[in-house]
């Protein structure tokens, strides 16, 4: 009995402690003036994290847009409202699907890779060696990855929306025969740039910060064994997916809660 309470308490302390470490870690690595060399490191990470994730994000966006159009059409046609297909596809993509799905894919594609990479650096004591020769690993290894993720995910989300809307047109207009003018017209009449596109981008900025933060911190904080790396990689994907979905609800409630 007492043993259980003790374990519970220790677990609570552990969680609080690692939260504190994560916060300090973010503060220490995100600040600091980037040097010219830092920019090069950042560029390489944007290439790895952003450009290399482009293919999976765009292909998923295309298929999600196409499925949305197909599903939406079969429902809307019952009400004789298939002209509203463009509005449905665009709003569901911009507000929800693009930020969330892109963030989930990003966590799987880039987040896990970041954790594994930094974790292996730690396990092979590269990070310790850097400290020994007077290079701050937070600045040299962590900061470029953090900033690269923060910049890449919003861009990927925008790409996702664009391709999704186009995929919706492909199915809705070209295949199912919705009139092209009403597809785009209804969309333009109902989508507001600040409220819908803007809030979607804000969402993706928040997700970008959370996902890369979790990924990089899990890599930096793991137990440097092969088992530790595999655990941390799993934790990255699980924690970031949960954080993205949970935060998405909170953000949606804040942004669109009063719109009914």
């Amino acid at each position, binding site marked *: 009995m007492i043993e259980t309470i003790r374990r519970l308490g220790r677990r609570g302390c552990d969680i609080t402690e690692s939260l504190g470490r994560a916060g300090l870690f973010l503060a220490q690595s995100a600040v600091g003036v980037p040097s010219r060399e830092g920019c090069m490191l950042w*560029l390489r990470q944007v*290439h790895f994290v952003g450009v290399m994730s482009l293919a999976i994000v765009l292909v998923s966006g295309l298929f999600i847009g196409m499925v949305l159009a197909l599903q939406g059409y079969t429902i809307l046609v019952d009400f004789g*409202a298939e002209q509203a297909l463009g509005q449905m596809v665009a709003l569901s993509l*911009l507000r929800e699907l693009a930020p969330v799905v892109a963030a989930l894919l990003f966590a799987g594609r880039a987040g896990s890779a970041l954790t594994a990479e930094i974790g292996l650096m730690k396990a092979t004591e590269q990070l310790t060696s850097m400290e020994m020769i007077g290079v701050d690993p937070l600045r040299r290894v962590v900061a470029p990855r953090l900033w690269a993720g923060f910049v890449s995910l919003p861009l990927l989300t925008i790409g996702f*929306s664009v391709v999704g809307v186009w995929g919706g047109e492909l199915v809705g207009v070209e295949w199912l025969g919705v009139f092209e003018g009403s597809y785009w017209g209804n969309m*333009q009449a109902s*989508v507001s740039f600040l409220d819908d596109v803007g809030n979607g981008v804000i969402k993706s900025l928040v997700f970008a910060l959370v996902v890369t933060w979790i990924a990089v911190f899990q890599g930096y904080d793991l137990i440097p064994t092969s088992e530790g790396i595999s655990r941390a990689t799993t934790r990255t994907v699980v924690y970031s997916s949960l954080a993205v979905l949970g935060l998405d609800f909170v953000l949606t409630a804040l942004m669109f809660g009063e719109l009914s």
Partner: protein
Amino acid sequence: MKRSKTMELGVGLFMLAGILGLVFLGLRVSGMSLAVPGETFRLEANFANIGSLKPRARVTMAGVTVGRVEAIELDTEWYDARVIMTLDGSLEGELPEDSTAAILTAGLLGEQYIGLSVGGAPDTLADGDTLRDTQSALVLEELIQQFVSSMAKE
């Protein structure tokens, strides 16, 4: 160094594609126009019941969109709804004073919008004027109630 150059190019293209995507979302999806918004003027109209009219709804004339609803507020003097509309500036000084506004519905269950029809008076409406002659929104419940009571009489 060759590999680094292609990488820089890749990242640059990626960023450019993101910005172009944002422009596409702005212009094509949310329908913003690059042109500076033209001259507009405001008209007000009081309705007994606006139904489910929302801000940003269309204001049309003979089916042509000529403006949008800017704001809707409760007029505490008469306890009816005051709707503020912004109309295309080219109509300023053109609409007769006895023009009417009605809240119409697109389709049976569609969104509601305002339809203006011109009157015949020589005086015209200017910026900030109020439309006197208005027709409220069609509320389905009231309609059914009327129908039921008229059925009961027969």
